[in-house]
């Protein structure tokens, strides 16, 4: 069972996130696993593969909002970076960011025994 301390060690800014949830830590811990099922991750990966940068931007943009609200900084950081690249529709190498996102998501999932 994940704890606030686990998330702090992961690098999440739990103080800000929990106060956003009116101090409800349990709710915070229950909310995070919902990220793992977020369709936007798959949508982002697929769109990048298909070079549909508009769709990819929308997916990254959505993730940025959600992860920002949960203050999951290590996962949020590559999402922000890829969002900004996609906003200007640069024909860049997005794989570095995708790798990092997948990596950070894995670490987080492990904390939640997923």
């Amino acid at each position: 069972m994940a704890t606030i301390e686990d998330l702090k060690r992961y690098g999440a800014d739990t103080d800000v996130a929990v106060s956003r949830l009116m101090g409800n830590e349990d709710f915070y811990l229950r909310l995070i696993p919902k990220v793992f099922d977020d369709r936007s991750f798959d949508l982002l990966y697929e769109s990048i593969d298909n070079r549909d940068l508009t769709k990819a931007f929308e997916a990254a943009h959505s993730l940025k909002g959600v992860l920002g609200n949960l203050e999951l900084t290590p996962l949020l950081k590559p999402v922000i970076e890829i969002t900004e690249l996609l906003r200007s529709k640069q024909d860049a190498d997005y794989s570095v960011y995708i790798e990092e996102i997948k990596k950070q998501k894995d670490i987080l999932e492990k904390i939640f025994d997923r």
Partner: protein
Amino acid sequence: MENTVVTFVEEGKRTILVADDEYINREILNEMLKDDYNILKAEDGEQAYEIIKSKSTTISLILLDLIMPRMGGLELLSTIKNQSELASIPVIVLTTDQESEVISLNTGASDFIPKPYPQPDVVKARIKRAIELSEERQIISDTQNDTMTGLFTGEYFYGYSEVFDKYHPDVQMDAIVLGINNFQVVHERYGKHKCIKILHFIAVEIRKQYPDNECILCHKDVDLFFIYCHHCNDHENKLQAIADAVDLVYSGVRLEMGIYACVDKNIDISKRFVRARLAYDKLQGNFRNETAYFDDEILNKILFEERLCDDFATAIKDKQFKVFFQPKFDVTGDEPQIAGAEALVRWFHPELNLISPGKFIPLFENNGLIYKLDDYIWKCTAAQIKEWKDKYHKIVPVSVNISRVEMYDPNLSNRLTKIVEECGIDITDLHLEITESAYVSDSNMIIERVEDLRKKGFYIEMDDFGAGYSSLNMIGELPIDALKLDMLFLRNAFNKRNMKIIDIVLEIARCLEVPAIAEGVETEEQYLKLKESGCSMIQGYYFSKPIPCEEFEKYIQ
């Protein structure tokens, strides 16, 4: 009128719709706000739109994500802001980037909240403020707009008109009063509910002819519309177009228009509409759709009347009002005998010369100055009776007129009694002429009041009898001491050689066992006929016109 703001509150909480496709975002806002608000949630734009449409009267605020499947936030925002019944719901946009903020505000959003969300107290404060502003605007809108027609109500109308003038000082403007001819009849015919529909319909048609960008419109006093617009010369055509449209749906509804063209902006806005209204009033009773303009004739009448009101206090102080006496003769014997007089007021204005009572009595009855004038006349009359009593040791009863508006003064009896006591005459010396029409309006109250005066000892003459108001059924119960026949009634009877009608009226006086007094008697023929038919007293030019007291004294001697 329903208070639209009240409907927002359900079980003490207002309702907020959170529209965001991200489950986590919705849940975070729900957690933040659930203690203070009822939260509705939508997962995409279309779902949000359905909820907004079905609950538009209960949703206080929408929190809207911009990027959503099936209908994006901006598209939804633009859709609801373009529908009048939804446009008043405030929307706060939830956005991750600054670029969208300006677009959102320009599309009609009240505010934005960035993602990640700020601390709850910040989010709550922005939500609270957006709702407050919107509700205040709604309350103002409910107050300033008439619910029946959607047009401005009076005070706001004047306010907006003044603002319009301020920004367009050089634009020539017309003030217009548009109304329904004989609204009472229309009301009787169609009923209240339909009348509201008619008024609404007229408002819509007025708006077509007088569009918002150059006109300010108002619904006033049930059946009137005020229009403040750029000057033009085709108001007649506009009225006709409105009237034609109305006539297609509601036949028999006729419209009239009073116009004060090219208004004088130096006079108060409400006075400009008084002028339009005066033009409108000239049309009353016509049976065509018609327009009338405020002109010099009306203006001069107003200025003349204003002058009279302004000069009134000085006139009382300087004794410009003079009481004249028209003798009444007892004609029951072989020779006519002086039996009294009627006191009649004349105004000797230092600049306007002699002003006829017909010009100032109705005016003073309308504005209340009549009370002061009557007090003045009654006192002068009572003092004159006293003077003659002392000088000639003779009682000459004099009647004074009690105007209809005086009958509504509960203090009337005290005022008259006080004057009689102060002047030292008997209460029976001052006769009171109360017009027949006073008995008919609100008759029970008036009858009680007259009875009270009579109990105190005043002699009551019913004035203008025959002018056609009282029913024979009522007349037997009226508290009166004499019947005074209406001047026009007598003149008509003589002109048409209808002598029988004179006999009938005099017979009524006999039945009531009161003397009949004929006024306005001008010829010997009239005098002889009235005397022969049993009229007790005669007043009129045949014997004497109204004369000053010095002249009247020769009759007493």
